[in-house]
């Protein structure tokens, strides 16, 4: 049985890699949790693509401001040092490479860094992309935060994505419940394995050859 860390532990693990001063966009869903684990006392600037830098935590009850929301349409607050801007300026920031880190969820990540996270390609589903494709190319480093396997046990780190792509060759690192993997020109390289997980075990779970840690 392999070691799996909880979603919150994984959020904390991602958070620990974000340096002071970084400008970071946390995608909708699990990545949003990362905000709760950013080191106290360090200044990290959160971007929300609906038009704000310097996003703060959720407001106190009774102080919800419908004009002040994040990309998930949840109420947030503004820190000292915040700035507002319109949508074209906001996505220009991402597209222009001015964010340091985006953290995103994924259905699949390929060994060449392709990301699939916007559509399962299920017939009859209403397609919706939002900012997914912009976020995928929207930072110097694009981190994916995901389980290693689907609930059905299928690998989410794959040789080639079978789901519709969100972006090509855009992912730099994948944080999973089993370990952390860098995307290199030669494929996935193990960065860290949680608990007693071994290189061979993870390769077997994925059916993929992984580059040894530190290699």
């Amino acid at each position, binding site marked *: 049985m392999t070691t799996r860390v909880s979603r919150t532990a994984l959020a904390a693990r991602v958070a620990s890699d974000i340096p002071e001063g970084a400008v970071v966009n946390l995608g909708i869903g699990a990545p949003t949790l990362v905000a709760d684990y950013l080191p106290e006392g360090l200044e990290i600037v959160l971007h929300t693509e609906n038009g704000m830098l310097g996003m703060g935590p959720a407001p106190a009850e*009774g102080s*919800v401001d419908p*004009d002040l929301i994040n990309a998930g349409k949840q109420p947030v607050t503004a820190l000292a040092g915040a700035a507002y801007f319109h949508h074209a300026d906001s*996505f220009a920031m991402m*597209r222009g490479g001015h964010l340091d880190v985006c953290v995103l969820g994924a259905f699949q990540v390929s060994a060449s860094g392709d990301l699939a996270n916007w559509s399962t390609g299920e017939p009859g589903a209403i397609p919706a992309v939002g900012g997914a494709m*912009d976020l995928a190319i929207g930072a110097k480093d694009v981190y994916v935060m995901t389980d290693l396997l689907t609930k059905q046990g299928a690998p989410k780190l794959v040789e080639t994505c079978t789901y*519709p792509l969100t972006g090509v060759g855009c992912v730099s690192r994948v944080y999973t419940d089993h370990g952390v993997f860098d995307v290199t020109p030669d494929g996935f390289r193990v960065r860290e394995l949680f608990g007693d997980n071994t290189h061979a075990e993870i390769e077997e779970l994925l059916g993929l050859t992984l580059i040894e840690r530190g290699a």
Partner: protein
Amino acid sequence: MIDKTVPDVAAAVADIADGSTVMIGGFGRAGQPVELIDALIAHGARDLTVVNNNAGNGDTGLAALLKAGQVRKMICSFPRQSDSWVFDGLYRDGKIELELVPQGNLAERIRAAGAGIGGFFTPTGFGTQLAEGKETRRIDGRDYVLEYPIHADVALISARRADRWGNLVYRETARNFGPIMAAAAKTTVVQVDEIVPLGDLDPEAVITPGLYVDRVVAVGERRWLHDGVFVGGVDIEGRPLARNGADA
């Protein structure tokens, strides 16, 4: 004297023709010009193409416009939300067309329309289904897709304050698509909390200069503000909170 103020929302939307392309501001509910949308429903223009980031929430605002059967096509980035049941039903019944655009390309295409740009190469969407059939090009080692502007006949947006020249300031993340839609439409109609005397807006802080605006209509301060100060007391949809011991 230049005076772009109009007395009410009905007058503000009275000339919107059937078949128009209408940009509607807002991201979810923030910045959605609900009173103008209601006026458009009352006005009854049909066969509209609507540009918005989403495709309506709940049963009000844009969702109500869809429900009224006035919209032929949506151009948006994210039509599927937990409370987008009106759009969902129409789409599944084949009663509405959908053009899905990545959010940043949507914003940049709207910006391009206002800025007189004929087309632009964007990296967003390259290699994906949403770029299928589109022209691509490798420039300086990066792959791009050619995207074209989205023009509109009318933009309906909301802002915090206007003056009679149509200069606008917004509030927080309700700014979102307002400034770029105002520039991309032939006619731009704005609902604001209040219209202030000319000269009251700081020229350093005007976000949408008046030349982009055709009509402004004051709809009164929103519930969570009082004399321009945030007073809270609402939920995320702007509904008053039940107070302890009060008969809410």
